[in-house]
């Protein structure tokens, strides 16, 4: 019937009792706002991580001792495996036909000294030749480390810009002697800044040749080998080649499992998605509780409204309103209420996402789907929780209703 009239009645009631309306709608507002905010964050995070992972390691896979481990037992098992060595890396470099680049890598965190100054918590990387391609480093000053540095276990290093700035403010770092642990290294290059990822600086590192690293840092430690395939299509072939070579070197009988791990960016991406999927489900659960509570409050207010307006319902029925006219009127009122809450919730959720996106490294991706979902959810809350009061109103006996004081 008179949709406009019912909506008008509901909006007038909302305006007339601002505080009551706000309290009534609080549950719905919180529910919708949190759904919008969570979807925005998870969306933004997904996009961000996918971008970064694919950017950093497109067509790259990693061979290491452990592989992708998610349980403690698997970890203990993997401890007993033989280490991956620079010799394995050499074998792979020689043998994997579909590889563009095979780079050995290992790392530790240490303090770096230059004269009286020092920088703490620097990611000291032992990298084989070609690391700049795999890790996407471009040189800002000086040069990258090369084959010769590695073969001769040179005490040479390339610094991340953050470390260089901290140790040599305003001075040219190239050729300076710095100390990492017991050894003194010569700075041969500084990379260009990459910025932050999830709040972590990507510029706080020092690269030294992998064999130098093996000699001084982790003589018996296992390394990892990053392999970039020729292209996307070659990735699975390259993985198979690497497996075959390592199994051959380790004399693993056919049918026995690998005693090394191979992971791709996809492995991480998948794991990450499972993780955020979990967060997502939990938050949707919390939001649902808020929405149910909000719906019950709306139902309560509508029940009060039906009682307050019993006489009005009687009059309307006497004037010719059918059951479904009354039903529609109260459903529209309940839905108008909850939709108002939904719209405020959407604004709040989007606002929250944008504010957090602006002041933290977490990006927020507000999408149309979240907004449609917010509108749909709040209308459903109104229709669902408005049904019972509307039904009560519709089935009122006109004589009793007219007599109601």
């Amino acid at each position, binding site marked *: *019937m*008179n949709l406009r009239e019912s909506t008008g009645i509901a909006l*007038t009631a909302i305006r007339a009792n601002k505080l009551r309306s706000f309290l009534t709608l609080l549950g719905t507002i919180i529910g919708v706002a949190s759904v919008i905010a969570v979807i925005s964050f998870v969306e933004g995070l997904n996009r961000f991580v996918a971008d970064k992972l694919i950017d950093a390691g497109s067509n790259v896979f990693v061979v290491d001792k452990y592989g992708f481990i998610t349980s403690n037992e698997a970890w203990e098992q993997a401890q007993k495996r033989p280490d991956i060595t620079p010799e394995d890396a050499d074998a792979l470099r020689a043998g994997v036909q579909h590889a563009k680049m095979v780079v050995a890598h290992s790392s530790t965190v240490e303090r770096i000294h230059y004269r009286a100054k020092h920088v703490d918590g620097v990611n000291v990387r032992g990298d084989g030749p070609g690391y700049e391609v795999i890790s996407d480093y471009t040189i800002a000053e000086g040069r990258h480390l090369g084959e010769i540095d590695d073969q001769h276990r040179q005490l040479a290093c390339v610094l991340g810009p953050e470390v260089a700035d901290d140790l040599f403010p305003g001075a040219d770092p190239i050729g300076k002697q710095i100390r990492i642990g017991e050894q003194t290294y010569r700075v041969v290059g500084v990379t260009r800044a990459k910025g932050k990822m999830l709040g972590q600086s990507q510029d706080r590192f020092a690269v030294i040749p992998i064999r130098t690293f093996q000699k001084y840092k982790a003589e018996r430690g296992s390394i990892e080998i990053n392999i970039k395939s020729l292209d996307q299509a070659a990735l699975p072939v390259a993985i198979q080649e690497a497996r075959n070579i390592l199994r051959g070197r380790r004399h693993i009988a056919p049918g026995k499992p690998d005693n090394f791990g191979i992971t791709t960016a996809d492995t991480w991406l998948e794991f990450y998605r499972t993780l955020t999927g979990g967060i997502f489900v939990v938050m949707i659960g919390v939001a649902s509780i808020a929405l149910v509570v909000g719906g019950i409050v709306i139902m309560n207010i509508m029940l009060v409204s039906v009682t307050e307006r019993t006489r*009005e319902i009687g009059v309307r*029925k*006497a*004037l*010719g*309103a059918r059951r479904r006219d009354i039903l529609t009127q109260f459903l529209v009122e309940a839905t108008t209420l909850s939709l108002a809450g939904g719209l405020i919730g959407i604004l709040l959720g989007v606002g929250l996402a944008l504010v957090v996106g602006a002041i933290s490294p977490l990006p927020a991706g507000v999408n149309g789907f979240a907004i449609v979902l917010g509108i749909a959810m709040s209308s459903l809350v109104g229709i669902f929780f408005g049904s019972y009061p509307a039904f009560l109103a519709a089935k009122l006996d006109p*004589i009793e209703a007219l007599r109601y004081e």
Partner: protein
Amino acid sequence: MLIAIRDLHRIYQVGTEEVHALNGVDLDIAANEYVAIMGPSGSGKSTLMNLLGCLDTPTSGSYRLKDHEIGSMSDDELARIRNQEIGFVFQTFNLLARADAIHNVELPLVYAGIKHEERRKRAREALEMVGLGDRMKHKPNELSGGQRQRVAIARALVNRPSIILADEPTGNLDSTTGEEIMSAFERIWQQGNTVIVVTHEPDIAQHANRVVRMRDGKIESDTVNERRAARTVPA
């Protein structure tokens, strides 16, 4: 015959007891009659009014309104009859407090499914007819008792019903205002409407041409009001 009632019974169940509110009523009312239904409280006049107004259905017997049997109708059909054939005027006015006069008068037309412009036009005409052309935007609490009742009369008239059914229409008004309202009914009757007034006040009943007295669920007497019947019924 506009209204034909035969052996009408209405029994209420109050706890384990059965209350015979109407106990065999026969009544015929022709178009353009002006009838007063009188009786002390508990005589069954309210029950009769509810049945006449299609707010209730009889336990047994027959009520034919314009040759439609009311007793066998569904809720929705009753709602339609109330909308099209009955115009209610209540003792307590029963206007919607939040709506202005014209919105109140429009309400029956809303449920009749009439378009907005047409509604406005007819509601305005009805209000002008009861002399409230200058009070259309006033809310009920901005109107006097007599004005409120006239808004209610305009609302009763707006959908051109077969019967104007008034339940103690002057019960909440002082006697001067009451007279005003009764002369409004007089005019409505003269314009060719059928008017039924339920009242326990003899003064009010004296305005009608015919007086039906109820007692204990039955019609006690059904007399022509000599003083009034002399008036010429308009053609």
